């Protein structure tokens, strides 16, 4: 069954089509979310939310772009929203702790290890992921989609609704920033 037929059938409420869509794109959605939020539990939560939205708002998909591009957009938006919500919660918890309303134990998440990285590169990749987390949103999204999801510059520009040259520039600036961060990190280690 091709993409268009699946989407048409989902629009008519066909559950088998929805199952097929989930099975086809669940890894793509999960991996994209994981690259952005760097936490497996959060990525699973986001992936589920993405498919819930796909199920509920497939009617608004006009077919101007590829279905996968549409899903990438939803995933990126949901991931960034999730991060903002998490930051807001942290700030709120901090303010509450200042006023002594609730003394929550601040849990620092362990260093992120992407399961798809080869064993001999795990340590370096861990440092790189830490640096990626500090990039501005646009650079982080462009870099993650290109490096972790393996999208071409053209595909990244479709997802981000921008031009290929903008994506090139974003990734170039991301690399410069990452180099600086890694330099600082390794200088501190020496």
């Amino acid at each position, binding site marked *: 069954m091709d993409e268009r037929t699946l989407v048409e059938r989902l629009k008519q409420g066909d559950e088998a089509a929805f199952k097929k869509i*989930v099975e086809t794109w669940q890894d793509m959605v999960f991996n994209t979310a994981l690259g952005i939020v760097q936490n497996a539990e959060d990525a699973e939560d986001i992936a*589920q939310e993405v498919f819930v939205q796909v199920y509920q708002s497939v009617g608004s998909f006009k077919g101007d772009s590829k279905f996968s591009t549409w899903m990438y957009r939803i995933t990126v938006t949901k991931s960034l929203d999730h991060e903002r919500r998490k930051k807001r919660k942290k700030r709120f918890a901090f303010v509450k702790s200042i006023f002594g309303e609730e003394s929550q134990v601040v849990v620092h998440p362990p260093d992120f290890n992407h399961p*798809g990285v080869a064993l001999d590169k795990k340590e*370096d990749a861990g*440092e790189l992921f830490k640096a990626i987390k500090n990039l501005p949103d646009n650079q982080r999204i462009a870099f993650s989609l290109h490096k972790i999801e393996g999208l071409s510059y053209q595909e990244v520009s479709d997802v981000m609704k921008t031009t290929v040259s903008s994506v090139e520039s974003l990734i170039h600036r991301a690399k410069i920033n990452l180099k600086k961060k890694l*330099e600082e990190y390794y200088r501190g280690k020496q």
Partner: protein
Amino acid sequence: MKQIPDMKRIEKALESLDGIQRATPQPYFYTRLKARLNRKEREWSGITGFISRPAYALAMICVVLLVNTWAVMNSTNESSQVSPIQVANDQQLPDEYNVAVNTFYDYESPSINK
């Protein structure tokens, strides 16, 4: 003096994502997703079910009627309780500038005043 970090190490870190494999969610992702969807649908049907209950609908109608009645009563009270100062002020402007409109009755029956 600051030491210059090993550039090769930085390059190695930057290239560490080359050849990365896609991460996959835990098994039975679809089952968990379906459970979430069902939960969301139940929540929504709970809300719509509550709103469409006759008791809730009747209560809402009563609230709307009460608010309307209160608004009407309030407005009639306000219009009947116009302060004397307000009346005087309203009269002052036409008197001062002589813009009071003579009525048809004044023109047609001046003899009444005589």
